[in-house]
C-alpha cells in the first residue's frame, strides 16, 4: 500500500487561541513543539501526544492532526510507555510518542519517568517546569526553588528542588536537556529529542505569570539565574546513543514466531492404567523445604493421572520458600473433584521434623481417625493419635532428598490406590 502524505505546514488548530495566561511559557512550548514536528516532516498519524493533568494538559485541544491521549495525573509517561512498547514490538510503525507533563505530574509519576528511561522506551518527555501547581492555586512543588513563596510556603520554601535532569541521567536516559521556554533554539532541541532513538527528556523551565511572580518578584529574565544558583545546568546535558532502545533489544531476544504451538513439548499425560479406587482419597505429605516434597507430590499426581484418576494438589511452605517445612495436600479420585480441601486425611506421610512440627502447628494430627494411615520416618517421635502408624527409615536408607518420593512409593504399594507401575515412568 503506498501512502501519499503531504507534510502539513502545521499540526496545530488554525489560528488557535492559547488557553494559557498572558506570558505563560506553555504557549511557547506548544508552538516550538509544532515547529519541531513540522521540521521533522513526520506524518501526523505517526505523532501521538500524551498529556498529563494540569495547565499543560490543555494542549490536546491545540493540536488538530496528531493523536492525542489525555491521561491521569502523573501517569502520562506510563500510558505513553505502553503505547510505545506495543508499537515498537508488535507493529513497528515508528509512532512518535511525546509526553507533555508539568512539574507536579513529573513528581507523582517519577517512577514512570525513571522506568521509561531505564527501559530506553522510545518516548520523548517534555517536562514543563514552572515551579508550582498552577491549576489549583499555585501550591509549591518538588521543583520549587528554596525560599520560593507560594500559598503553601508562605514564609518561603525550605525544601531543596529536585534536579530531574540528573535523576533521568542516573536512570540511564541518554538524551537529557534543560532549556528555557523562551530559548530561541527550543524547537531544534525538541526536534532532536524526538529524533533520538530511545528515551529523551527535555526539562523546559518557564514562568507561571499568574502565581510565580507577585510575591517572588520573579521575571522571565531571572529564572535562568534561579536555576543556575541551585546548581542546575542548562543546555543539552547528554545526547549519547550507546544502547539500543527496548523494542530492538526485545525483538532480538524474542524473535517473532506466531506459529509457536503453546503446547510444544507438553503433550500431557495419557492414561495407561486403570485404578480400582472407588472413592476420593486425601493424602498429606510433610517434610522439609529443599527435600523435594512438593515435586514428589506432583509425581504422585502424575501417576494418578496415568492411572486414569482425577487429582488436585495444594502446596504450602513458609514465605521464604527455601527454609522450614514443605507440605503438599493431594486428592486423588475416580470421580470429578469438587471441594479441594482435605478435612480428614486418608493418609499422612511425614518424612522430617520440620514436617511433623507443621502438622502439629496445623492441629492436623488431632483430626486423624482409625482409618488414617500415618507413614512416619523412623527418626521421628510417634505422635499420640488413633491413626494406624507405619514406620520406615526412609531418610536413613535413601537420604533426605529421596525420602518423600520413597515414602509415596511405599504408600502406593501398601494402599493399592493405583498400580505401583504407574509411578515408574515418573520416578
Amino acid at each position, binding site marked *: 500500500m503506498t501512502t501519499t502524505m503531504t507534510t502539513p505546514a502545521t499540526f496545530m488548530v488554525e489560528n488557535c487561541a492559547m488557553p494559557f495566561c498572558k506570558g505563560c511559557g506553555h504557549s511557547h512550548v506548544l508552538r516550538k513543539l509544532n515547529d519541531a514536528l513540522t521540521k521533522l516532516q513526520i506524518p501526523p498519524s505517526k505523532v501521538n501526544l500524551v498529556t498529563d493533568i494540569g495547565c499543560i494538559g490543555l494542549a490536546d485541544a491545540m493540536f488538530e492532526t496528531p*493523536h492525542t*491521549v489525555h491521561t491521569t495525573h502523573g501517569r502520562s509517561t506510563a500510558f505513553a510507555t*505502553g*503505547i510505545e512498547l506495543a508499537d515498537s*514490538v508488535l507493529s513497528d510503525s515508528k*509512532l512518535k510518542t511525546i509526553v507533555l507533563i508539568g512539574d507536579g505530574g513529573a513528581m507523582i509519576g517519577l517512577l*514512570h519517568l525513571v522506568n521509561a528511561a531505564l527501559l530506553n522506551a522510545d518516548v520523548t518527555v517534555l517536562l514543563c517546569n514552572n515551579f508550582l501547581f498552577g491549576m489549583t492555586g499555585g501550591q509549591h512543588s518538588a521543583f520549587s526553588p528554596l525560599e520560593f513563596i507560594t500559598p503553601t510556603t508562605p514564609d518561603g520554601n525550605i525544601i531543596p528542588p529536585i534536579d530531574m535532569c540528573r535523576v533521568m541521567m542516573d536512570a540511564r536516559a541518554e538524551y537529557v536537556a534543560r532549556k528555557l521556554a523562551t530559548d530561541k533554539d527550543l524547537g531544534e532541541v525538541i526536534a532532536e529529542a524526538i529524533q533520538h532513538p530511545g528515551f529523551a527528556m527535555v526539562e523546559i523551565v518557564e514562568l507561571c505569570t499568574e502565581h510565580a511572580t507577585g510575591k517572588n518578584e520573579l521575571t522571565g529574565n531571572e529564572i535562568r539565574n534561579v536555576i543556575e544558583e541551585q546548581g542546575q545546568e542548562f543546555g543539552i546535558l547528554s545526547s549519547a546513543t550507546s544502547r539500543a532502545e527496548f523494542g530492538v533489544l526485545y525483538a532480538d531476544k524474542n524473535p517473532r514466531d506466531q506459529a509457536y504451538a503453546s503446547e510444544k513439548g507438553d503433550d500431557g499425560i*495419557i492414561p495407561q492404567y486403570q485404578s480400582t479406587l472407588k472413592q476420593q482419597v486425601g493424602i498429606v505429605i510433610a517434610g522439609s523445604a529443599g527435600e523435594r516434597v512438593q515435586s514428589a507430590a506432583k509425581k504422585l499426581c502424575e501417576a494418578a493421572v496415568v492411572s486414569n484418576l482425577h*487429582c488436585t494438589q495444594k502446596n504450602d511452605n513458609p514465605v521464604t520458600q527455601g527454609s522450614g517445612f514443605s507440605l503438599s495436600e493431594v486428592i486423588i479420585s475416580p470421580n470429578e473433584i469438587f471441594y479441594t480441601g482435605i478435612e480428614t486425611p486418608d493418609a499422612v506421610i511425614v518424612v522430617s521434623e520440620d514436617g511433623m512440627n507443621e502438622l502439629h502447628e496445623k492441629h492436623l494430627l488431632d483430626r486423624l481417625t482409625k482409618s488414617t494411615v500415618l507413614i512416619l520416618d523412623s527418626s521421628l517421635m510417634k505422635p499420640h493419635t488413633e491413626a494406624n502408624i507405619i514406620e520406615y527409615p526412609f531418610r536413613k536408607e535413601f537420604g533426605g532428598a529421596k525420602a518423600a518420593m520413597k515414602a509415596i512409593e511405599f504408600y502406593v504399594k501398601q494402599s493399592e490406590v493405583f498400580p505401583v507401575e504407574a509411578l515408574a515412568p515418573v520416578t
Partner: protein
Amino acid sequence: MNHTQTSIKLRTGNQMIAEGAVKAGCRFFAGYPITPASGIYKSMIELLQRKGDLAISSPDEISALAYCVGASLRGYKAMTATSGPGWALMIETVQYALMTETPLVIAMVQRLGPSTGGATQGAQGDVLLTEFCTSGGYTIPVLCPSTPLECYELTVLAFSWAELLRTPVVILTDKEVGMTTESVNYEQLQLLHAAERISHLQKPTNGRDKAKTYEFSRLSDIPKFAPVGGMLKVTATGSAHNKSGELKKNDAETLEVLHHLEEKIKRRKDGLAIVKRDVEPEANTLLISYGITARAMEEAIHIARKQGRKVSGLHLLTLFPVPEKQILNSLGQVKRVVIAEENLSGQYRSVISHLMKTQEVVGINKIGSMITPQEILKEVL
C-alpha cells in the same frame, strides 16, 4: 479403558488463565509479582515471549495497568494480573480504561485482606472492592471461574466482552482456584474464539480524517474503535468528554456519554450472565455460591442428594452485571436461600438479597480457610 488417547495436563487456575488469554489473542501482558497471582505473570512471560509478543515486568501495579491501557489504545489485546493490594493501586487506571472505553482484561486473584493481609491465604473478600471501585458506580463485568477449565473458558470470554463492549473486564478468582494444581482434560476445553473489537476502516488520507473516538447513536451502542497510531486521528481522554473525545464540562452531549458508559453494559446484562443451575422442583432450599466456594456447594448438594434430601443449587460464573433474571428464575418454590462466600459480611449477599422478596435469606460466611461442604450442608432445610 476408553480414555487411552485422552491427554490430561496438570494445571493451576493461574496457568489456565494465561493459556486462555493467549487463545483469546492477548498479545500484551505487563506484570508485577504478587502472591497468589504471580503464576499468571510467569506463564504469560513464557507463552508470549516465545511467540515474539510482548510480556514485560513493570515497576509497580500502577504502571502495569497503564502499560496495558497504552497497548490496548494502540490496538492490541492486553491483560495484567494482580491481587487485592495491587488492585488497590490499579483502581485509578481501571477508571481511566472505563472512561476512555479501552478494552482490557484484569485477572484478580483474591487473597486474605485487608491491607497486605495474608499473601498465601485464599478469600472472597474483594468482591465489592472490585466492582464498586469507580466514581459514579459504573458496572465492571466480573467473571468468576472455580476450576482450571472455567479459568480458561471464562478468560477467552472476558476478552470477547472487553473487546466488544470496549471496557475493562475482571476475572475474579482466589488463591485456591489460582494456585491449586488439578488434572485437566484438554478434550473438554471448549473450542472458543474470542471476538475482536469493532474498528473503523483504516484508509490512507491526504488530509487528516478524525475518528469520532466515542461516537454512538443509541446510548447503548458501542463506539467503533480506532487505534492510536492508525490513519484516523484519535482523541482520547479520561476527563468528561463529548463523542469526539473533547474535554467538556456538563454539556448535553458529555452527559450523554456518561450515561452511555453504563447503558452499554446495563442494556446487555441478561446476555452477560452465566450461571450453572441445578434445580430440584421440590427443594425448599436454594444454595447460591461462586468461585471456590461453589465447589464446596456442589459437593454439599451431591452429599445431600445421596442422603435423599432435596436441594437446589445456583453456581454463579458471572457476578456483575448481577445475573438477576437467572437468580429470580431459580427461586421456584424455595423457602430459604443460602448464600455461601468466603468473607465475613456476606458481600455478594448484600448485593442480591433484595431479589428474595418472600424467602428467608441466610449467609454462610467465614475467613481463614475454605468453607467446607459440611458447613453448607448444615443450612439445607
